[in-house]
């Protein structure tokens, strides 16, 4: 029971897991477990969407940012190219309200409050999932409850069912000078140890062609200063003890150097800005079932990030800007849950995270932040009902070397989620949730020289969601059909919005005040087998959304859409596999949106749509398997900007060869 609970960390509640195991007790192949995961993501009390490893490879997602665009309710702010900054905003709440979870432990950046998703390659990702409100599992660190939504990245480092060694190695080559070699090994050892490591490098010139359009004037040119070189590696050790408790430890490093091409400025094409990142972190999780009804989870992480930004054109008579930042964070968490009677699970968690930031800029205040999260949750399952309630207490206090630090904050924020099935085994389910979250102003918001404002208030968000899901098994042609529709209403108070300023790395904060967001997310997944051997899978997602600024009735932006929130957006993907062949098609589209709060035709940005296709062939030799894949991205060569004046690539191709053991 415990092992299965660990696998379904991001799937359903305990009782649902038990029901599914009974249905599919015949075979325990890897494939079956994956199918169960997909089923569960449509029957959770709060909306969950997930993409598995195979789908991530099929959609040619370079990083998890490219993959996350396929989720409904998601806006990825993409600044172009392989090395361009990519941040996720879910249901228009902004990147700071989305928690990024890497193998069960939150990723943090107290300086900017946003995680650049371009650094998470999808090569070794087993599952990428998006959870609204919270992850439906009773044993979680408290910090995860603090986000309005969570993007969980789960790697292939721990699979208790896989008992033999496996390795993979490959290389991907593509347009604009892309070379991406990677390799990984998974080695179970004696005494229930599993060691795994993986490494990947990315080289890209990024000099894709684009058009500068200024009225009637149009010029075709190439993106320059866009080269990227990154190297990342990870080593994991997992030990299962005799009492079936598990200890997973990971050490990971990431090094990158990239040119920042900047916004397109008419009559001034030059950019010499560069960005270096050197990150290392070590994280560990220990899970133990103390009794049959009580479980414990201990988590710890230490991360050190170094960022260097240079702009030799900055006119400060000192050879330009050369800003270096060091961020250190320690994270400790203890969580426990306990089964009370048949229907209740109660859980509690406490986390602390001290964080330090230092910089070489003169007059930097060297802020320190101590964060503490404490959560209690109650999970009730009875008949067709499931009720989850939780209360989070957050304490954040800052200290600075000089100047004024922000005042300490203590807040209680609740969550309530309810789901109902008319009868056991029914394909229908209704669900609703209510959640309050807040996010602290970041170090940049508060303390950045001259721009920071230590009086900034935290940003509050209230989320309401009501939805229905239908998930049913049919015949072989359509093995599974699932659809979910969720209507939501979010209100944001004291919203702190970031707008790209003179350079990509430094932001200007605008306090928007109050925003009302209405939306509808529809997601559907189908799969099946036709003509005996042709397996197919299809996924479609659509979001209708309206995020309006309701701060000041006398302002020209009153009841206008806030910047960069399209009313319509969606994605679709379909893939086939037949014997050793695979092929597929995927597409993304976004409706028109506005670059500024005043929605006039001058600030309107055209919608866009991209389509990709791929074809792959697997070959099995005696000793290993080879898979060759070719993909053509943006086949219609649509030129577009996600963020105005940061052009995206047109048509591009990629070829990859992957070897793994049989």
């Amino acid at each position, binding site marked *: 029971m415990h092992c299965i609970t660990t696998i379904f960390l991001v799937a359903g509640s305990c009782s649902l897991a038990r029901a599914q195991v009974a249905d599919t007790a015949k075979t325990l192949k890897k494939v079956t477990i994956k199918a169960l995961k997909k089923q569960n993501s449509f029957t959770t009390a709060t909306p969950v969407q997930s993409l598995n490893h195979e789908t991530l490879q099929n959609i040619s997602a370079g990083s998890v940012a490219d993959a996350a665009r396929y989720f409904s309710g998601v806006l990825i702010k993409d600044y172009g190219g392989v090395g361009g900054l990519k941040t996720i905003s879910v249901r228009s709440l902004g990147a700071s309200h989305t928690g990024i979870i890497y193998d069960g432990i939150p990723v943090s950046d107290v300086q900017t409050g946003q995680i650049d998703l371009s650094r998470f390659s999808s090569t070794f990702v087993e599952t990428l999932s998006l959870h609204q409100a919270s992850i439906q599992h009773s044993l979680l660190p408290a910090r995860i409850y603090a986000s309005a939504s969570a993007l969980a990245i789960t790697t292939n480092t721990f699979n208790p069912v896989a008992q033999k060694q496996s390795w993979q190695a490959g290389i991907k080559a593509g347009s604009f000078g892309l070379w991406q070699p990677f390799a990984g090994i998974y080695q179970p050892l004696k005494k229930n140890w599993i060691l795994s490591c993986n490494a990947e490098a990315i080289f890209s010139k990024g000099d894709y062609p684009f058009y500068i359009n200024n009225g009637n004037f149009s010029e075709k040119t190439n993106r320059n200063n866009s080269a990227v070189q990154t190297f990342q590696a990870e080593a994991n050790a997992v030990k299962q003890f005799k009492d079936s408790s598990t200890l997973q430890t990971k050490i990971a490093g990431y090094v990158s150097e990239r040119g920042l091409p900047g916004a397109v*400025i008419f*009559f001034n094409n030059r950019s010499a800005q560069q960005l270096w990142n050197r990150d290392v972190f070590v994280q560990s999780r220990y899970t133990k079932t103390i009794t049959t009804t009580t479980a414990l989870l201990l988590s710890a992480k230490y991360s050190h990030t170094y960022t260097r930004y240079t702009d030799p054109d900055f006119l400060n008579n000192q050879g330009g800007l050369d800003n270096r930042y060091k961020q250190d964070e320690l994270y400790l968490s203890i969580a426990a849950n306990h089964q009370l009677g048949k229907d209740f699970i109660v859980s509690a968690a406490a986390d602390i995270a001290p964080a330090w930031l230092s910089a070489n800029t003169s007059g930097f205040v060297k802020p320190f932040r101590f964060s503490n999260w404490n959560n209690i949750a109650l999970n009730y399952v009875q008949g067709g009902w499931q009720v989850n309630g939780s209360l989070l207490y957050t304490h954040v206090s800052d200290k600075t070397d000089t100047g004024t630090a922000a005042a300490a904050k203590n807040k209680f924020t609740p969550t309530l989620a309810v789901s109902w099935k008319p009868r056991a085994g029914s394909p229908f389910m209704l669900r609703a949730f209510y959640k309050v979250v807040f996010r602290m102003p970041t170090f940049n918001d508060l303390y950045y020289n001259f721009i920071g404002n230590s009086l900034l208030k935290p940003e509050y968000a209230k989320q309401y969601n009501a939805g229905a899901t239908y998930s049913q098994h049919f015949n072989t042609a359509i093995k599974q059909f699932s659809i979910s529709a969720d209507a939501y209403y979010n209100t944001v108070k004291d919203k702190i919005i970031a707008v790209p300023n003179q350079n990509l790395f430094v932001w200007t904060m605008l306090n928007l005040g109050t925003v009302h967001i209405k939306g509808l997310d529809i997601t559907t997944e189908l799969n099946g087998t036709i003509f005996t051997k042709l397996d197919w899978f299809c996924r479609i997602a659509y979001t209708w959304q309206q995020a309006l600024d309701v701060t000041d009735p006398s302002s020209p932006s009153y009841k206008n859409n806030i910047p960069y929130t399209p009313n319509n957006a969606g994605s679709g993907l379909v893939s086939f596999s037949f014997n050793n062949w695979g092929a597929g098609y995927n*597409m993304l589209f976004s409706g028109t949106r506005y670059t500024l709060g005043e929605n006039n035709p001058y600030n309107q940005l055209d*919608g866009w749509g991209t389509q990709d296709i791929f074809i792959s062939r697997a070959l099995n030799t005696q000793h290993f398997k080879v898979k060759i894949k070719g993909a053509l991205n943006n086949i219609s060569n649509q030129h577009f900007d996600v963020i105005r*004046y940061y052009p995206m690539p047109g048509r591009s191709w990629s070829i990859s060869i992957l070897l793994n053991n049989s």
Partner: protein
Amino acid sequence: MKKNAGFLLVVTLLIVCSCKKNDSPAPVVPVVTTGVYVLSEGLFNSNNTTLTYYNFATSTATTDFFASSNGSGLGDTGNDMIIYGGKMYIVMNQSSYLEVADATTAKNIKKIDLKTATAAARQPRYAVAYKNKVLVSSYDGTVAVIDTAALTIDKFITVGANPEQMVVSGSKLYVANSGGLQPVPDSTVSVIDLSTFTEIQKIKVPLGPGSMTADDAGNIYVACIGNYTTVPPRLVKISTASNTIIKTADTAVGKMRFYNGKLYATGGYLGSSKVRALNTTDFTAASSNFVTDGTAIKLPYGITVDDLTGDVYVTDAKDYISSGEVFCFDKTGKKKFSFSVSPGLNPNTVALIRK
């Protein structure tokens, strides 16, 4: 499967329909007679600098006048504009060039690049005219001397760090060296001899000089912003006869213009949100608000005075991210008219044109 194909078709149609903006009809370009041009700088790195023409006779504002005349826009962050000798000179800060256009049609005559040999932007800021030259200050610490006939750059004069506004007094040019991008702001005003076009002296002033104006008695006024923390803003009066400070006051001024014995001043980033008319002798104001009829200006940004009529033009940047507005007041502080420069953001310069 059939269902899926149908859905995909619908979605594809949606893409096609939602992607194209409606093509608007070609704009009608009015004939320029007497009125004002307003330069709206837009936002950093948004390529949305616009030029508005307001016609006094018809009381209509034609926004994006430059783009209508030329078929393409000015570019990024227009910081200053002067009308001189039948031409208009627009200083484009981020696009880093000087736009030279016909004053009555706004049709482009020449674009003078203000970049270094390695194509790095000099980032020009302000322009002034003197005889047959137009002088442009750039953030790389230079003043470019441009011949108005040949429209080429004669030379670059090296001044202090990050120069901002300039004024001509007599036969000398005074340049405020703000040092705005330095770790510590600058505190000098460069004096340039306009017969030799060389810097002859630096006058020490309070920290962060930026805006300047000259009176008709051989004095210049410099607004110094300080360092935003420990050093407060100050206003100084310099006698050009001795090139020394003869009056200092602790007051914050954003932009200012001298007219008829008064300094019309906005408060700027750190100062009063009202426009004041200050005495040139003691820097006091008759009232805290020059506007006498209760007209509210949300964020006074630029200011200019019509020398012929004494009308005071004040631009309103609102909240920096919404369309701006321009107000015209008579010399008693009563509003004569106002107009929006929408979709232009942050109008900073008003220049009069008379045919």
